[in-house]
């Protein structure tokens, strides 16, 4: 599904390398977790995969389902089926959630929306997420609480049906019940779409107990330095990153 080879990334017009020779293979249907200290480049990795304007890929390649995506535009990457649930989702005032989702859905599927079906699907997804139905009429993330922003990301996943889901600290800001709801929704999605791959960036094993990873990676200084299974996540929580 996703194959990253020797990726070197810096901020545009700056020499300092944030990612420094990172490699990662994510197979179809696999769940991977990445843990690592603050500032080590986890969000940068997720943004580089998505083609964020702040970063430049200096070396290496990102291949998604056989296509090298280094030079694709952001929306082209999304259209291939990559979804980044952001650590801090952006507020887009003036644009309602429904206009936003409708545009994204229409562009991704190339189909004109059947409005009644769309609203039905949205309402069902909102109910699944225990998310108030009027959220769909509010401006994108404007005035949303931290947890509501995270649920809004998951709502988009449920509607847009990506093939690769990157969850950048989806668990931060969610209360215990909301985290459980979100994890259930992701697991349900994965059950319905077993080929979907998931990359979970987190600081805490708790979410990994709910969405079970096949591999756990430890990232440090812009590379992956250790790979293991769930026990690595638990061990890391106990001893920290310096052991």
């Amino acid at each position, binding site marked *: 599904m996703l194959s990253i080879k020797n990726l070197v990334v810096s901020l545009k017009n700056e020499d300092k390398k944030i990612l420094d020779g990172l490699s990662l293979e994510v197979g179809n249907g696999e769940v991977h977790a990445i843990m690592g200290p603050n500032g080590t480049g986890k969000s940068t990795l997720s943004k580089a995969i*998505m083609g*964020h*304007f702040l970063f430049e890929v200096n070396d290496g390649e990102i291949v998604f389902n056989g296509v090298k995506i280094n030079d694709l*535009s*952001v*929306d082209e*990457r*999304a*259209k291939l089926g990559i*979804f*980044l649930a*952001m650590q801090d*989702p*952006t*507020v*887009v*005032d*003036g*644009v309602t959630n429904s*206009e*936003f989702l409708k*545009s*994204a859905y229409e*562009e*991704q599927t190339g189909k004109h929306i059947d409005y009644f079906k769309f609203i039905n699907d949205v309402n069902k997804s909102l109910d699944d997420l225990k998310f108030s139905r009027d959220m769909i009429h509010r*401006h*994108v993330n404007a005035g949303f609480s931290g947890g509501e922003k995270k649920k809004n990301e998951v709502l*988009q996943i449920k509607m*847009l049906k990506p093939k690769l889901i990157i969850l950048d600290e989806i668990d931060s800001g969610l209360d215990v019940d909301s985290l459980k709801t979100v994890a259930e929704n992701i697991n349900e999605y994965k059950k319905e779409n077993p080929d979907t791959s998931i990359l979970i960036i987190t600081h805490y094993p708790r979410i990994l107990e709910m969405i079970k990873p096949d591999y756990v990676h430890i990232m440090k200084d812009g590379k992956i330095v250790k790979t293991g299974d769930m026990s690595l996540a638990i061990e890391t929580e106990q001893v920290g990153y310096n052991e």
Partner: protein
Amino acid sequence: MNKIIYINNDCVFDINKDETLEIYHYVVDKSVNIKINLNGENAKVIYRLSIISNNDNVCKVDVNHVTSNTESKIICHGVNTGNKKLEFNVTGLVSKDISKCVCKEENQIINLKGGESVIKPNLLIRNYDTFSNHAAYIGEFSKDKLFYLKSRGISDANATKLLMEGLLLGDGDRENVIVKEFVDNLKEAYNG
């Protein structure tokens, strides 16, 4: 008394005692000249200008606080789609013997193609107990917002269109004829 109106032409407004008027003004590529007089105590106005501009245009909005205890809030949003000049010239006047007024301005111009845009906020306030403020922004659409929209598969053109509609339509009633006509023009202006 509270009244909401939608316009697409220049006007002079006289707002009397205890009246509140909300004006939505939608303009496609022409200059604007608006005068608002707050004539009686407790007269209030909220004026919102939305303009899409492709040629040289000047938007002149004058608000005169004729009486004490009057309030104005002027919000001008523009998108400069070409490489010509768009100017906002917004004046709030409170003379010396007029007291306890509120006078606010918020002006924003988005340059899509590097046209020249100018905002001249003039608060001519001769009285000390007036509450006034203004905010102005000239620039591009936020890259972060564009990135967020595009990361969901929306093309650059459509993401820009969504942000344009968001900025210009605001909370205007999208079922109103003047708004509908403006939306059609917006789509045309953007495609062409």
